[in-house]
């Protein structure tokens, strides 16, 4: 904590100004706030019962913290436990779980854009960064430390701390060096500050942004370029020697380095910097001509680095990227941005939404007044208080999450409509009910049916994972994860296997392909998104998705009993016959209903609890029992499962 002391002082001073209008003196934490409006957020006292029933509590915390619904054993044990301390204990147990790591690595990987650019490789730097993020989440690395590592990462692309995945996309997809730097700094302000600055890369803010972003109105293109200039000493370097003539593309990727000329890495004898010769002097020379790059021509000569929100430059002896990392992580907006993003993960939307829509001229009361505008965030008093506490915690992400889930507001019974007399009424209302992310739905589907999950991702060929949350980026899993695709002479009929799927627990090659391809299809159709395709994760309900879940064969194949997938003769010869196993849970219920060990009421209670984590309503119970009349038992069981998978409560948080 000592290292953060100077920062804390700066922020407390700033916080005094921002909070003075709302929450009183910043020395009060949320726990002893004098502001009655914020009392609803205070922590639920240890030993007191939340406002929601046990099943709703479990549904909420499990899905939000781990992306999974609890197992039947967990539900049974929890509901039977009379102790009032079980709620806090369950939350702690989830924080310590491997599933927590998987889920929040995905959060970070999405935020930090870790997606491989090249499809036909072992994704070496994607996997390196993924492994690095796993360690960070496991060790609860403070967010400012993690951000600095990503922003300043240099060295081998396959060293996790280089965070090469964050840099790769712009480096490889943009031809023109200035575009690379500009796009990447725009990514940086969006990721770490929540502010989109790319508008002012093409034109000054004045006369363009008055209606869009008041904080950027005064900014000029030169200000944006001065931000990009912090990256101008950074290059991708490829060391090569004569023996590398026949190097594979994978080998090439593994050799790449991210280097900074101003960190003593300028001496690269044998090798190649990825840059047009004109741009190898480490300066941001704004001069360009028409047609060069995709932007209007620029004038301005050599631009020196200047942080566009404060005008500060690198200090003596400080490398440009290290300076940028310092300036960003000490900007109050850095903390605000992460509080906003984490909040949105639990409440469905941020204090500012969309999450990259911050207006730096409207972040808090003082700033908004200075810009003659209104405060942008919803319930700014709560945001400010949480932000200050997050900073004081040392940018502790787990602390922030814990603070949120142990709050009375998070554990509240949701209201049907927003109570306008309640400052926090919006967050307490059912507006925060939202559709679950793709991975959570896929996982819930398998879990409810009692089906095993097994996936392999590229570059990680010696182990399988058992949850889509453990996959390192969108685009996984895919059929070719275990297959080597040579640059030439690729033969579909003679695949080169990197590992035998049966070594990883798959029943057969057919089983491997089916699981990989089905999971891929499900994730894509449920909105996982692809950064490379500029389509972000998207959790909205649509008619197309409703049709998909009702009719796509993968969504009812497992309920139809074991049946043979139709393969044509050639496919059968090469990959074998595939019998899709029926859901063991459904098979067990069919058996129990058939021999009288279970009656219809008992079945309904059990399947509703398992699928939806609640009991059926009286109307639902009547509906299903009416449906069962004249039906075979197996038909009734399968149709109930299918109907519940298509029930709104299956794919929504509550």
């Amino acid at each position, binding site marked *: 904590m000592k290292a953060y002391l100077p920062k804390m002082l700066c922020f407390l001073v700033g916080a005094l100004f921002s909070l003075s209008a709302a929450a009183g003196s910043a020395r009060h934490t949320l726990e002893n706030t004098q502001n009655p409006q914020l009392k609803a957020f205070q922590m639920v006292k240890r030993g007191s019962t939340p406002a929601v029933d046990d099943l709703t509590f479990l549904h909420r915390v499990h899905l939000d913290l781990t992306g999974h619904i609890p197992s039947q054993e967990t539900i049974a044990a929890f509901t039977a436990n009379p102790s009032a301390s079980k709620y806090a204990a369950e939350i702690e147990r989830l924080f310590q779980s491997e599933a927590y790591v998987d889920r929040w690595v995905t959060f970070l990987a999405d935020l930090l854009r870790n997606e491989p650019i090249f499809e036909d490789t072992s994704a070496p730097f994607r996997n390196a960064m993924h492994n690095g993020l796993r360690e960070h989440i496991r060790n609860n690395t403070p967010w400012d430390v993690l951000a600095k590592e990503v922003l300043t990462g240099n060295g081998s692309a396959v060293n996790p701390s280089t965070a090469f995945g964050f840099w790769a996309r712009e480096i490889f997809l943009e031809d023109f060096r200035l575009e690379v730097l500009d796009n990447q700094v725009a990514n940086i302000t969006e990721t770490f500050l929540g502010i989109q600055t790319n*508008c002012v890369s093409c034109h000054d803010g004045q006369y363009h942004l008055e209606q869009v972003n008041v904080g950027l109105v005064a900014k000029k293109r030169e200000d944006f370029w001065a931000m990009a200039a912090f990256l101008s000493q950074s290059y991708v370097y490829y060391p090569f020697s004569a023996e590398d003539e026949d190097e594979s593309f994978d080998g090439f990727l593994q050799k790449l380095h991210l280097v900074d000329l101003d960190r003593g890495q300028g001496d690269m004898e044998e090798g190649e910097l990825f840059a047009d010769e004109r741009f190898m002097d480490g300066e941001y020379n704004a001069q360009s001509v028409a047609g060069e790059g995709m932007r209007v021509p620029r004038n301005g000569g050599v631009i020196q680095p200047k942080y566009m929100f404060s005008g500060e430059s690198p200090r003596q002896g400080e490398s440009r990227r290290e300076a940028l990392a310092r300036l960003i992580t000490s900007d109050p907006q850095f903390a605000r941005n992460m509080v906003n993003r984490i909040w949105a993960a639990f409440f469905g939307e941020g204090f500012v939404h969309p999450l990259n829509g911050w207006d730096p001229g409207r972040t808090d009361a003082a700033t908004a007044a200075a810009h003659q505008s209104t405060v942008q965030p919803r319930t700014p008093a709560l945001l400010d208080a949480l932000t200050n506490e997050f900073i004081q915690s040392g940018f502790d992400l787990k602390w922030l999450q814990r603070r949120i889930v142990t709050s009375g507001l998070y554990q509240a019974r949701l209201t049907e409509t927003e109570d306008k007399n309640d400052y926090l009424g919006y967050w307490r209302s059912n507006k925060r009910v939202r559709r679950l992310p793709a991975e959570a739905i896929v996982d819930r589907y398998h879990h409810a049916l009692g089906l095993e999950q097994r996936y392999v991702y590229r570059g990680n060929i010696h182990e399988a994972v058992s949850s889509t949350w453990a996959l390192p980026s969108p685009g996984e899993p895919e059929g070719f994860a275990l297959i080597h695709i040579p640059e030439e002479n690729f033969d579909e009929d003679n695949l080169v296997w990197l590992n035998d799927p049966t070594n990883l627990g798959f029943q057969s090659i057919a089983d491997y392909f089916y699981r990989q391809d089905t999971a891929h299809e499900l994730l894509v159709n449920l909105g996982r998104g692809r950064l490379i395709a500029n389509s972000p994760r998207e959790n909205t*309900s649509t*008619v*197309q998705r409703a049709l*998909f879940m009702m009719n796509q064969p993968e969504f009812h194949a497992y309920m139809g009993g074991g049946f043979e997938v139709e393969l044509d003769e050639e496919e059968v010869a090469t990959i074998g016959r595939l019998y899709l196993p029926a859901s063991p849970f459904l098979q067990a219920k069919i058996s129990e209903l058939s021999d009288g060990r279970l009656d219809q009421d008992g079945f309904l209670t059990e399947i509703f609890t398992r699928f939806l984590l609640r009991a059926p309503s009286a109307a639902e119970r009547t509906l299903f029992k009416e449906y069962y009349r004249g039906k075979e038992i197996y038909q009734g069981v399968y149709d109930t499962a299918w109907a519940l998978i298509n029930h709104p409560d299956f794919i929504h948080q509550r």
Partner: protein
Amino acid sequence: MQRRSFLTSLAGAVGLGLTAASPAGANWRALPRQRSAVQTRNTARNLIMVLLDGGPSHVDTFDLKVGRWTPNFIGQQTIGGSLQWPMGIMPKLGAMTNQFAIIRSISAIEAVHERAVYHLITAHRQSAALAPEIPHFASVMSHMMAGQRGPNDKLPTFVSVGTDEAHNGFLNIDHAPLIISEEGRIANIVHGIDENSDRLQLLDALIALHENRTDAGGNHALLQQKARRLMGDQELATLLGGLSQADAGNGGGEEAEGGDAKAQFVRQCKTAVNVLAAGRGTRVMQLRLEGWDQHENIYVQGEGGLSHLAGALDEGLATLYADLQAQPGLNGGTLLDETLVVAVGEFGRTVGNLNASNGRDHYPYVTPALLFGGGVKGGRVIGQSSADGGAITDAGWSHNRFMSIGDLVATMYSALGIDWTQRFLDTPSGRAFELVDSIATGPVHEIQELFV
């Protein structure tokens, strides 16, 4: 439109879903510009734009230039004394050159696929700041023609094969496209397991218990009900569900899928005609034939090569023409008379000798288009390019500049009777939205040489 009635009408059902951004009851009104309004052409009721995704090589297709590089299979012939045509790869179109017009003098600006397609489908340059607001021109057309919809119009005005970067923007969700596959189908519209159709009624009853919820689950229930209405509609299942006409009544059977690009594109074209002819509300369709981005091995025969794609285009456009002509129009003529068809890619390709990978690269400076129907006079070639196709030598119209992408879109608006110089002021950002983005050199014009 009242929110309730919007939700229960099927027309609203098949968009991309409810988004919080659509303001309830918004009545976006386009306002005429201060300058004098233009006279619109008003010769078409419907529009089909065939997006040649990837950017076709103009010098190998609509603006043939023969040189050392030209392979024999191109089969160049001179038609009507002056039109050079690749009969070897587009024989059907070559036999009907009097039925369509070609424009050879559009000069596009963007050379990057995403930006160039965006420019074509929105008549605006792509901008991160504005993108969430800017609608596809077909969504704008849907909005402008909303008053013409009747009680039996259950399909949206705008139907698109595949998705692009622009949808309904700031306009209501009613104007978002219904997305269909390259096969011309709504994915997953048929349940497929016929013995289990009882379960659909079970789900209907279950969903009905949740339709009045005020949370996201309630919204979802309403969307599921819309999806169910789609599924239950036999006519839609035949039009867009791949259900063959013969088997529709028996609740089973699906038409073939798959096959090569040609078979697929022809199916798309046939679906387009069926959908327009059914008269269920759809008036603007975007079809798609992709694969034109031939940076490598452009003249290689077989799937993926130029001859294969051009053959697919040839077959498809000829099918479109014939099938549209065979359908009666609403106003006495044929459906072809009432439907403007525009085949265009986002840019042309480099000219002369092939590149180092035996292909052609992006070249926006000369971008060709082929048009027929909807009042277009056949047998016209508008504009000319240089001997190698690298520069426009004659813009082919009366205005003192090259034709732009905006002019082409203006032409489409004009054919449908929509004043392209209008703009909306009440956008969420407060910025005025012009139907066709202003250009520095003066007003945007329709290409009247197509019609008079």
